């Protein structure tokens, strides 16, 4: 099956127009070559041990021709964040729709455009970021992403500039007769002391079957500060493979919130390189899955120099026959003394059929470090349930309340109100007695 699928994507690649800049064609060619050699990952590979990608492989997703459709996307109203005064780029079925893009009053020197546009006009500025070697640990999906690289968002913030309005990148997938794949490459570049808030939302029409294959590359110079939110609300028949790859310079800070609610089969990767002293990464995550959903979160933080900090805090709620995977890797290299690394992952299993495979992986080669990790898997606390019921609260509401309270531990870490509220709504929407339980929240 894998050979046929590989052939399918090679064929798709062969049909790509060769309109890109020459250097990009080189990158694409190298990537498809690597893909040809490796094929799709199997569960024999450590990195994919608990996630079977065959449902993705067997579907032969098609790439879309850019700008194919001009009708106003029905999904837009449900997901736009225009009400909160943000810059917004909207991508539909794989390509950017400039008609729905709102970018106003950008600060001096800031660039925010779709990648397709940048590639069409002046791509020299972005070339160095693509030629950075990320060669090791490229998965088949990463290679496909590079091979089909054409669309996404490009943000450049010059030294000392703080972008006041949040930036919302909205990726929508509509119901289509044939299953489509959207390959996105977002490039975020923050100069020294630059600051920005970026929200990525991925959503799809209820019964749409499609694949989102997305990579966000972030480079933060000295003292840059990025708040990054990823709201994964794909259709329950949609597939999602996405990565955030961050490289943090001196005293640079990344606060990431990965919120994974939708999708039939989802893999979220975060890879943070702390390359200079004082760099700090905070990785918060929440995944909620029910039915037959499969959600896999892999995080990896590399502490490469002394005095860097990372804190991972992931929580998962799994119901029905859902399957969760959490793999939190922290590597403290030999020279990275005085590293402070914490990692925690707690899981709530609401049904006896739900499953989670959780594994912290600490690789510590330095001796003067502060590292801690903890993972838990549990059910709702019977004593708490009984306490609530003894106070006249019915069982269903009591369960919802405790589940919501568990998720709130992550949600409360979100200091950007629109995202927090949207998330609370979506989370509460998955539980019974939504209206009632919202009042209870401490």
């Amino acid at each position, binding site marked *: 099956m894998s050979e046929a699928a590989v052939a399918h994507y090679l064929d798709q690649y062969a049909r790509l127009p060769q309109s890109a800049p020459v250097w990009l064609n080189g990158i694409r060619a190298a990537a498809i070559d690597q893909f040809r050699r490796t094929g799709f990952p199997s569960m024999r590979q450590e990195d994919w041990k608990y996630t079977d990608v065959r449902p993705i492989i067997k579907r032969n997703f098609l790439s879309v021709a850019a700008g194919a459709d001009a009708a106003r996307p029905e999904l837009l109203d449900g997901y736009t964040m225009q009400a909160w005064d943000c810059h917004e780029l909207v991508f539909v079925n794989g390509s950017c729709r400039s008609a729905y893009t709102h970018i106003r009053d950008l600060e001096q020197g800031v660039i925010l455009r779709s990648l397709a546009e940048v590639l069409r006009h002046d791509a020299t500025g972005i070339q160095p970021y693509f030629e950075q070697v990320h060669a090791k640990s490229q998965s088949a999906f990463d290679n496909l992403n590079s091979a089909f690289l054409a669309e996404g968002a490009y943000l450049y913030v010059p030294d000392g500039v703080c972008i006041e309005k949040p930036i919302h990148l909205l990726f929508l997938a509509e119901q289509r007769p044939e299953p489509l794949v959207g390959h996105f490459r977002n490039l975020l570049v923050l100069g020294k002391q630059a600051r920005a808030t970026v929200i990525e939302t991925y959503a799809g029409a209820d019964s749409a079957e499609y694949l989102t294959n997305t990579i966000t590359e972030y480079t933060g110079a000295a003292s840059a500060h990025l708040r990054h939110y990823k709201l994964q609300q794909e259709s329950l028949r949609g597939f999602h493979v996405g990565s955030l790859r961050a490289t943090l310079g001196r005293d640079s800070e990344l606060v990431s919130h990965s919120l994974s609610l939708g999708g039939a089969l989802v893999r979220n990767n975060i890879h943070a390189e702390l390359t200079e002293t004082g760099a700090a990464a905070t990785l918060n995550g929440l995944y909620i899955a029910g039915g037959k959903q499969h959600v896999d979160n892999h995080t990896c933080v590399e502490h490469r120099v002394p005095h860097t900090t990372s804190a991972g805090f992931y929580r998962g709620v799994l119901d029905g026959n859902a399957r969760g995977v959490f793999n939190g890797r922290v590597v403290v290299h030999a020279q990275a003394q005085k590293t402070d690394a914490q990692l925690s992952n707690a899981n709530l299993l609401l049904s006896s059929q739900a499953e989670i495979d959780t594994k912290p992986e600490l690789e510590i080669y330095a001796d003067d470090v502060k590292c801690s990790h903890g993972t838990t898997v549990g059910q709702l606390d019977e004593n708490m349930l*009984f306490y609530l*019921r003894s106070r006249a609260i019915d*069982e269903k509401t009591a369960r919802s309340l405790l589940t919501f309270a568990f998720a709130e531990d992550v949600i409360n870490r979100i200091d950007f109100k629109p995202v927090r509220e949207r998330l609370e709504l979506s989370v509460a929407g998955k539980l019974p007695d939504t209206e009632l339980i919202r009042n209870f929240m401490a």
Partner: protein
Amino acid sequence: MLNINNLHVSIDNKQILKGLNLAVQAGEVHAIMGPNGSGKSTLAGVLAGRAGYTVTAGSVTYDGRDLLTMEPEIRAREGIFLAFQYPVEIPGVNNIYLLKAALNAIRVHRGLSELDAVDFLSLVRNKLKLIKLKEDLLGRSVNEGFSGGEKKRNEIFQMAILEPRLAILDETDSGLDIDALKVVADGVNSLRGGDRAIILVTHYQRLLNYIVPDYVHVLTDGRIIKSGGRELALKLEEHGYDWVREEAAVA
């Protein structure tokens, strides 16, 4: 009001209650005393509907209805309230909202209208004065980070708001300072009478100086082996439980 007849209860095949009899009429206050591990909290848990118990024999009726088949929330709505020996902390669930939801669930069950925010708050203010609970505890998560005494006070505060018909206080006096003890006593005494009844589980006759019970029962090894008036508590305090056990063994 409450009739416990020959109640046998086991946990994981271990027999805890072994033929317990107790009848509580409206308006009465009953104190239950007994050594550690004798089954007092088990009894309280069975009455409130905690899971994990197996009733192997006997019956419990409440207003003539089979109590044991009711869900815990229905018992609460029917007027049963348990003040826990160890109130659990519930992070993320707001104390005051829980109380409002509890009160309204009970009111609706009784065919009354729900209290709106204004009426509820004025009720809360009144009871706060009575129970002398620190107001900032209300806005916090249920019992989270409360001191031992604050947790107990919070239980009594809930009781004062919910005005149960049958209140079961499981060692609410343990770990309380003298002032708090009086507060608990005031809370209980203000509920006393009419068609309400109270069961006090305690180790110390000191509480009974403030809440004078109509009956005192001695529970040892899963059974009530002696009952009497207030003076029984004084005698227990002075002489311990051995003489009661011996007496029971002879009889």
